[in-house]
Structures are given as C-alpha cells and as structure tokens.
C-alpha cells in the first residue's frame, strides 16, 4: 500500500486559492480614500476616510476586515488593486471561467501548474477543493472535493466490496476509471490522516468562526499539518454579488473572510512560510453605485496575497493620477484593469517553483510577474 505519509520530509509548499464568488467589490474592500472621484461616484456607499483602516496614504482597508490589518502591518499580506483579467463580458459565468481556467484555454491554472511540476510524491490528496465540487482551477489533475474528514468513508460491512469496486473501475477506464482509482486512494489516505491527527495544539486559540468558510480552512490546516501530500487547495466564499443593499450584504461577509484567514494563519504558525494564499474573484464592480444602493458587474477589482514569503505591507497599484473620474473609466463606467491578475498569481507560483514558466501556466497570456 502506498499510503505512507512523508512525515520526515520538509514541508511541501502549498497553494491555497480563496475564491470570492459573485464579484467582490475592490473599491469597498480596499477603498481609495485619497480619491475624490471615488466619493463622488459613491455618495451612499463609499467608506469614509476616517473609518477605513490605514494601509497607505491613499488606500484604506474596510473596518470589517480588521483581522487582516495586523497581518498587513506585519508585512505578510499584500494587496493588488485595479487587478483583473482580460475578460470583458461582465458575466459571472464567463469571468469566473476565465479566472479559474487562467485564460481561454482548457484546464485550470492550478491544474496546469501542478501538472508541470508533478513529482512522484503526488497522491490523491495533492489537490483538494473544499466543498461539494472540484473547482475549475484544478482541472487537469486528479482532485477531490471534500467537506469534512468524517464524511469521507464508506461502511465496511462487506469487506470484499471495496476490492471488487476497485477492479470494476479499473476495467471501466476513462474518466470513470480514473475517478474510481482516485477515490479509493483518497479513502486510504484520509483514513491514515484521521488516525494520525493533524490537529494543532493551538487550533482552539486560533480564532476560527463557526461558519463554513472557517471550517474549511481549519480542515485545510489539518491536512497541511498532517503532511497528507497537499499541494494546492481551493475554497470559496460566495455571496459578493451586491447588486443592491451592498453595505448590509458585505458586512456579513467581510468579517467571515478576515476572521477565517487570520485564524488560518495563526493556526499554521511557522508553516505559513510555505503556505501561499491568494484571494481572487471574477471581477470588480462598477464604480458608480446603482439606484438600489448596490453596484453592478464591473471590471478591475482587488487580489490579496498572504504568507509564503510575500512582500506584504504594500498596496500595488497603478492608480490614475487624476483619480477614477469618468474620463478614465471604460464601458458602462468601470475601472480598467491595470495589473493583470495572472501576473499576481504567477509571482506566487514562481516562489513555489521558480522553474515554471508563465507560458506553461497561462498559455496565450502575456508573460509577466507582479512585484510582490
């Protein structure tokens, strides 16, 4: 059985992609408090300069994201503003597709990365999506969806069943055969993790919330600690599609996001040097608020990077000198993309495996790396 967990090996770098589904509003999460045009465009929604937590002279952090502020100040969290992709559809579906596939090619950006950098240690738990389905970002490698360790089993009333299923799926071949084999291997691996623990002594003090997002991050931390072979994980926090009543809607989500990430970092402690977190979303939102105190689908947004040696405590942006007035907006009034998202992601991947090329992970997109 090849279920031996490489306890003795050094930590393997892990990529964690947090996806904010629905189109999180970068101007709300990281308001440009030094920009008058921002306040003119959002008379009802803008974050007041006095309430935002200071990031730079020009940018603030929404107060509901307070747990992230200390991480930023410690230099372990960086922000890329006016960040996004070339997808101009403003469609959730297309934009999410573009982000997770990493362009218009088939496969996922993380999947391509894992495939290019595969090594013999890779196993059924190399790529995990927290939740009920595997993220498109992981397409191209074997990946499993997981909600908890406990649900990851089958009753063994009939000991012969597993073996016979294994044989049947092996004969089936194709996608079913691969899924069957990967399921059986994952089952064995999880059972050894469950016996071997992976729970840190400090998990109770880490400060996780009771919500599913915190629960998912807690599970990831356990897999990372247990050295279960994890190399990349995705986790979603949805509900950012704030077409109306944006303040109410996001005030429930931002604390969940910030609290979860802060607890995850605390839980992992020194291991965070090898854990690379990137927070993405499908698009930012329109600069002007709409009639329902919300914002519609836009273009550029924000991307966060945490841990993994990111040069944090900085907001990277190429903000227009005269602010975000009508003259610089595109389409129906959206912030144009200045920092390509894939450059931000590529910089993180390069820290994990310097030899991997941008062309391999983001085929067809202009190569480049964000300086963070």
């Amino acid at each position, binding site marked *: 059985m090849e279920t031996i967990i490489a306890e003795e090996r050094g930590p393997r770098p892990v990529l964690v992609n947090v996806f904010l*589904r629905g189109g999180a509003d970068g101007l709300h999460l990281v308001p440009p408090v030094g920009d008058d045009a921002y306040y003119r465009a959002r008379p009802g929604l803008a974050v007041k300069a006095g309430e935002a937590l200071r990031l730079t002279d020009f940018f603030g952090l929404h107060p509901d994201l307070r747990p992230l502020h200390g991480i930023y100040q410690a230099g372990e969290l960086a922000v890329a503003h006016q960040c996004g992709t070339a997808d101009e559809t403003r*469609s959730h579906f297309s934009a999410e597709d573009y982000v997770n596939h990493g362009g218009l090619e088939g496969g996922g950006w993380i999947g391509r990365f894992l495939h290019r950098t595969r090594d013999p240690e890779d196993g059924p738990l190399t790529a995990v999506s927290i*939740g009920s389905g595997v993220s498109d970002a992981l397409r191209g490698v074997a990946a499993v969806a997981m909600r908890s360790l406990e649900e990851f089993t089958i*009753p063994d009333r009939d000991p012969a069943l597993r073996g016979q*299923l294994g044989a049947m*799926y092996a004969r089936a071949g194709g996608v079913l055969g691969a899924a069957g084999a990967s399921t059986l291997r994952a089952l064995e691996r999880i059972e050894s993790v469950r016996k071997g623990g992976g729970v840190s002594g400090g998990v109770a003090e880490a400060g996780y919330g009771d919500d599913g997002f915190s629960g998912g991050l807690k599970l990831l931390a356990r897999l990372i600690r247990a050295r279960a072979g994890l190399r990349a994980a995705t986790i979603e926090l*949805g509900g950012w599609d704030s077409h109306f009543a944006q303040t109410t809607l996001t005030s429930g989500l931002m604390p969940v996001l910030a609290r979860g990430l802060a607890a995850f970092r605390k839980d992992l402690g020194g291991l965070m040097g090898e854990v690379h977190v990137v927070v993405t979303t499908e698009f930012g939102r329109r600069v*002007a608020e709409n009639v329902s105190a919300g914002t519609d689908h836009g273009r550029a947004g924000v991307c966060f990077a945490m841990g993994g040696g990111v040069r944090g405590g900085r907001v990277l942006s190429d903000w227009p000198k005269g602010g975000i007035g009508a003259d610089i907006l595109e389409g129906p009034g959206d912030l144009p993309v200045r920092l390509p998202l894939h450059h931000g992601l590529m910089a993180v991947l390069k820290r994990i495996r310097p030899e991997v090329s941008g062309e391999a992970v983001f085929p067809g997109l202009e190569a480049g790396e964000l300086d963070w």
Partner: protein
Amino acid sequence: MKTTATMTRRGVLRLGGGVAAGAVLGGCGKVRALWPRRGELKPFAVPGGEGIGPVAHVLNRLTWGAGPGDYERVRAMGGTEEEAAAAFVEEQLKPEMIVDDYARAACAPLEAIRQPVPELFEYKPAQLDDELTRRAVIRAVHSERQLYEVMVGFWSDHFNIDASKLDCQWFKCADDREVIRKHAMGSFREMLRASALSPAMLFYLDGRKNRKDGEADRPNENYARELLELHTMGVDGGYSQEDVMEAARCLTGWTVTGREVQFGIGRVYFDARGHDDGRKVVLGVEIPAGGGAGDLDRLLDILMGHEATGRYVAEKLCRHFIADEPPGGAVAVVAEAFRASGGGVREMLRALFGSEEFGAARGVKIKRPFHFVVSALRATGSVTTAGGGVKRALLVMGHVPFHYPTPEGPAPEGSAWLATLLHRWDFAVKLTDGGIGCSRNEPEKLVKCAGGVGGLLGHCFGRRATADELAAAGAVKDVVALALAAPAFQIY
C-alpha cells in the same frame, strides 16, 4: 384519524421488515403504498442484449432510471425494440394522458407548498424547503409522467433560482408550480414570460429593484443580463453590453411586493412611474418610446425571434438528452423545431428523440448526483418519502434541488460531479442496508424477482452483465450495493 393512519403505517412497515420502524418514522411523513407503483414486487423481465438496446435507452434518457418491471412494460408496447421505444416516447410526450395517482397520493402530505402565494408566508422557510425538496424527489422516483419530471428538472436548472435567497424562500414554491411545472412540456415563450414575472425571479435577480425615477438612475441590469446570457441567447449569442442595458431599460418598473407589506404579498405589477419609457434598441431592433408595460413583450419577442435563442435552447436540450458535446445535426433539427413551433417544448423533444444522433448515443452520459440517487431508489423499487438520508446524501454531494447559488445553475455534465463517487458508494451501501431513513426496499426479493444476480445486473445496467461483472457480484455479499456503486450504473 391520525392515530389510525400511523398505526396502519407502522403495521405495514413491520410486515415489510428490514428497516427499523423508529428510523423510518422520524420526520418522514406518510409512507402510503408500496412499490412497485402498480403493486407488489413480482418477477420481471430485464434487458438481455449485449449492449444497451433501444428500450433500455429510452428508459435511461426519458426517465429518472428504470424501476423493476419498467423494461417489461415498455418492451410490450411494440413488436420490435424500436417500435416499443417509439411508442414509449409518444406516451411520455403526452403526460396529461398518463394517470399518476400514486405520485399524487405520495405528495398529498406536502401541504404547505400547495398554498396560494400570500398563505405561503405563514409557513417557516425550513418547512417549505423540506417539502420542495421532497416533492422533487418523490415525483422523480414515483411519478409515471417520467419525461415530464425529467423536463421539470431541466427547466429548474435552466431558470435556476436559489431558494435560500431572501423572499425566494417562499416564492420558489410558486415559481416551481406556476413557471416550471406549468410550462415544462408547453411553450417556452410562455414559460419565459412567466419566469420574467415570477416573484421568485424578481427577487433572485433583483428585477424588482430595477426602476428609473430620475435622469441619473442606472438600471439594475442583473436580470436582463441573465435573461440574455442564460435564459435565451447564450453567452456567445452575439449580444453586446449595450443590448444588456437596453433590455434592462425595457424591464424597468416591473416589481413585486414582498414581506414588507401586510396584505397582498407577492403581487407582481408594473409601476409606470419607475419605467424608462424612452426609445430603446435591442439587438438592432427598435422599440419606440411610449411602450410602457408592453416593452416586456416586445423584448421577449425580439429574443424569441433571434436565431441564437433557438440554437441555445436546442443545444442545451441536446446536451441533456444526447451527449455532453451536443451533435450539430441534432441541434439543427431541434433548433428548427423551436423556430417552426415558436418554442414548443413538445415539438422540440419529438424532433430530438426522432434524430439519429439520439438513437446512437447510448450509455455515453454520466449521471449527476440527483440522478444517481433517484435512479438508485427507482432501481431498487424503494418506497421513499425523501426525508433524512436521501436529503443528506444530496446535500453532501452538493446537489439538493433549488440550492445552487448562482444563476447559471448546476453543471450539466456528469463528469463535473465525479468527485462525489465516494458518496455514491456510501449511498449504495446504506440504501440496501436500511441506513437511508425514510426509504424502504427489499434487496433479497429484488434479486429474486430479477431472476438472480445476472438478472439484477441486467436490470441495473440496461444490458446483459459481462463475465467480469458477474464474477465481481459473485465475490460480494451485497450484490445490490455493488450494482448501484458499479461504473455501469453511473452512466446512462
């Protein structure tokens, strides 16, 4: 009366054996009659061909899976397999002619979701959600109008609404019956209009907030975008951002009353003061100023008349019924039926099932989790009230009906759901072991009635079992669990 009913049911369960009565009684509602739908489980014929034959194929695609005796009944509908399959297609295309007393009776205890709209608000969302899920499962498992139920599932995905959003918690019940179930085999045009004015849709995609009161007001384009992208033309349908905004302008003023009012909840109306009554141009077609409420139908007519809409709906139907990569020939035929009939669902389906591509694409699709669960319940001849373990299984596989958060609906390709394989195996084992509450079956009798292990596999796979499959079945105690967990039961 209540006591008597409970006692009777308890007596029935005791007689059936196999399941601890206590496990079944907890929150399940009433288990009325026993499978099969037309009487007790008795010996039945199973498909015996080397591959999936025409009858097994239509049972695979037009139903939520074959139950005990279904093959035998359909096979008898024609002299040859092909004739029998064609007769079954015609039968299923006319659901109104099919007696469905059993399913109706099985759903009778689900009373809350049948209430008129304002009365729905007297119930807790959790109860409505429970009843909605259970009705979807019970009807899929027990209805004789199988194609109709398959289409209900199809349109529920097409016009996806997350029933947990705001007042959709109540209104989705009305949407299910007034939009989806009412038009599932009728007119796409009417379904589209009903959806546009459905209280649940007006909440889900913020249409109710889309109004123009002042010159500076920008329309809320959420619904308009999904109307073009997901409901009619498809993302590659050739519309522009400008078209989305113009469509949103057409729809300004339509709104609905929610919980904030005391009387008349769920009243959908056109508020002329919130309507942008200027001239619009959608997809190059002009809608003159002053159209008022009529802009809605002008917009829908433009969308219905656009070639992309017929193609997009045809593509989705062909993906659903033929293959994940819909064959171009069949798409063209179905799109033509859409055009000729003005969006007649029945006409599109008849064209689709008559296409060569449909007949040829046997066993090439992978079941999604809901399909797997329902087909397992049907194959085993289970009686279910769809509480407890059935709902838990759907939840853990991420496929509870009406729970998909974003408007594009759950992924249509079964291959996107293969990470749930372990949960499928788990369900297969528990279902035949009495571990799924609120569902009852008799695995040993089933095997016997199918004519032994080989017959059971033939029944579950829609074809004769291979030597390897028979050997595998011979090596395990629980052959029914193995059959349901096998690769051949994941495809259809």
